[in-house]
């Protein structure tokens, strides 16, 4: 059992034993192919807890191996055995769908540092569920808005054939408004995109939008760059994250992507976060790290105002979102999903490191499309 007992810091200082009063359970992906994302969320989260200097918070961290049934089992363990007050950490939508409805129904708080499935933003919303990252459609909507503003008229769009992929294309189309030169669903986990690139070449499109998270995006970008097709590419931040950009290399240079965060957003919280994260872990923070960091700071801000045991007061404190976010201003909509500005970023090279720089605003103070369906 990996208990990161923050109380040990107090013990080391020779203080009397401080009993952990708030227990947070983190279920995230720490092994297997998608481990990079979970590690970033965890590290960002723990950095904020450490900086708070509080010795009355205990964080229990467990690895879900990206398997829904393991995640459900861990959630049972967190609730039944560890008796945590707050849960957080899940990266993937399908795991979130498996865990969140049942833990919130059991009266626990859940704060999502990454996944935001539409089912939990609309009719399935819950007063104890808060999303600190984004609703799944948001970044794709921003990409559509950016494409429309950039004057593109005819997009070729592609995503894997699974619910998040279908949401992505829906989100893009919602804001784009132009013609579609092609709409393609690829296989989940597909690694070769030669066939799709040939279709893009033949389609007569003036722009390409893709949502291919993780290794799929790396493969697509490398093959696209080598194909000689010169059309501009737009995508959500997931394929241009700090962790995987280094594996894409030159192929990603100049590509525009949309994100609610970047390391060059200029505010004191973000500047300090980027610096301390690098000192602490020796690498640049990613989008996911910033989301983990914000999630922890939101919890800390609410704990300053109310005890978790007083659920109504604690919920109000969370809803107020009275903390300084790495994204600057941060507030929740009526369905407990963020209303936030989403930026357009461009991939650049700083020395030897590939990273992003903000080139403009794609959507200002954007709320998700499902808030109206939420009856809380």
């Amino acid at each position, binding site marked *: 059992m990996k208990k990161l007992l923050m109380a040990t810091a107090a013990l080391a200082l020779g203080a009397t034993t401080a009993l952990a009063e708030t227990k947070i359970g983190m279920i995230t992906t720490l092994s297997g192919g998608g481990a990079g994302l979970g590690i970033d969320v965890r590290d960002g989260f723990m950095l904020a807890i450490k900086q708070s200097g509080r010795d009355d918070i205990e964080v229990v961290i467990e690895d879900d191996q990206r398997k829904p049934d393991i995640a459900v089992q861990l959630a049972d363990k967190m609730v039944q055995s560890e008796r945590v007050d707050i849960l957080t950490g899940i990266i993937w939508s399908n795991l979130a769908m498996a865990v969140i409805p049942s833990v919130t129904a059991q009266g626990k708080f859940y704060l999502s540092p990454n996944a935001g499935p539409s089912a939990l933003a609309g009719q399935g919303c819950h007063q104890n569920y808060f999303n600190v990252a984004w609703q799944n459609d948001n970044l794709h909507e921003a990409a559509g808005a950016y494409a429309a503003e950039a004057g593109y008229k005819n997009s070729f769009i592609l995503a894997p054939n699974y619910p998040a992929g279908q949401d992505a294309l829906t989100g893009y189309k919602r804001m784009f408004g132009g013609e579609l030169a092609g709409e393609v*669903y690829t296989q989940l986990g597909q690694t070769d995109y*030669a066939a799709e690139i040939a*279709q893009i070449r033949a389609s007569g499109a003036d722009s390409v939008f893709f949502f291919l998270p993780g290794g799929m995006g790396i493969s697509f970008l*490398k093959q696209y760059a*080598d194909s000689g097709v010169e059309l501009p590419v737009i995508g959500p931040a997931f394929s241009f994250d700090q962790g995987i950009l280094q594996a894409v290399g030159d192929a990603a240079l100049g590509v525009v992507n949309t994100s609610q965060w970047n390391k060059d957003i200029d505010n004191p919280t973000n500047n300090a976060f980027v610096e301390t994260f690098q000192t602490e872990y020796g690498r640049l923070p990613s989008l996911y790290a910033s989301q983990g960091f914000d999630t922890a700071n939101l919890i800390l801000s609410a704990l300053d105002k109310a005890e978790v045991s007083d659920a109504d007061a604690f919920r109000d404190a969370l809803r107020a979102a009275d903390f300084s976010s790495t994204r600057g201003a941060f507030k929740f909509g009526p369905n407990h999903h963020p209303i936030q500005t989403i930026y357009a970023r461009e991939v650049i090279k700083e020395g030897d490191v590939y990273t992003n720089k903000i080139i403009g605003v794609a959507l200002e103070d954007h709320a998700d499309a499902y808030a109206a369906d939420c009856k809380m």
Partner: protein
Amino acid sequence: MSALLIIEQVLNGLQFGVMLFLMAAGLTLIFGVMGLINLAHGSLYMIGAFAAAAVAGATGSFILALGAALAAAAIAGALIEITVIRRLYGKAHLDQVLATFALILIFSEGTRWVFGSFPLFLDIPDYLSGPVTLPGGIQYPFYRLTLIAAGLLVGLGLWFLIERTRVGIQIRAGENDREMIAALGIDITRLYTLVFAIGAALAGLAGALVGAIQSVQVGMGEPVLILAFVVIVIGGIGSIKGAFIGALLVGLTDTLGGIFLPELFKLFMEPGAATQTGSALASMAIYILMSLVLIWRPTGLFGARA
């Protein structure tokens, strides 16, 4: 859909098939000679890709990277043959499945232990990158043409090795009659290690070649492993010729299915639903192909025995 696009897609299917052949050839060779089901073949593919990425990162040379991939996979192959696989030859298929499944776990998490959780970088060298114009005006990536050529060359080399050399005679004899070849004074233990290392090196080469245009990451071997098994089962296990035909069939079915099935459904469905249904069916296409082949010929196209 223009004829040129169709030709380009056929090329894509061929290229995919040829890469699958590199994987499948080693797998089928190992099964044919030693009667071993090696689930860890995908791990050797991954080892090749990681070795290539590491060496390319350190030296900047793609040729050295390919050499490193071949060497690393062959050494890893020989090593597991001597320590583990050797004890499995006489055992039931079931034990082989479990032991090599265990090796997958060890290799995957071990690689993550050494290289970390993030994908590695491996790129096409400058002299192979960019598109070329083929007769008829098709723009096609040069690297993919190189892959087709490399795959065919390896296939030819393998044919030569098996049909025309002394080692090849021993391998073929080993397939047919194990006791006899041992009685003839050939060191069967060394022959087995050699065959296993050759199969492993082929997988490593495929991993490195494909790694340059894909993502070099932990777990990259498993999807390919399943496809390689589909290939050798369609072709008939133990038959190199079968593996070649099977690989091309699978490559073409997968690529062309992904393009044409959605188009086909658009004839009688609305486009959005057609794309989804077509893609769903396309991802099942090769498995449907495989079951049809097996129902028609229970030992594959060129399989001699079950």
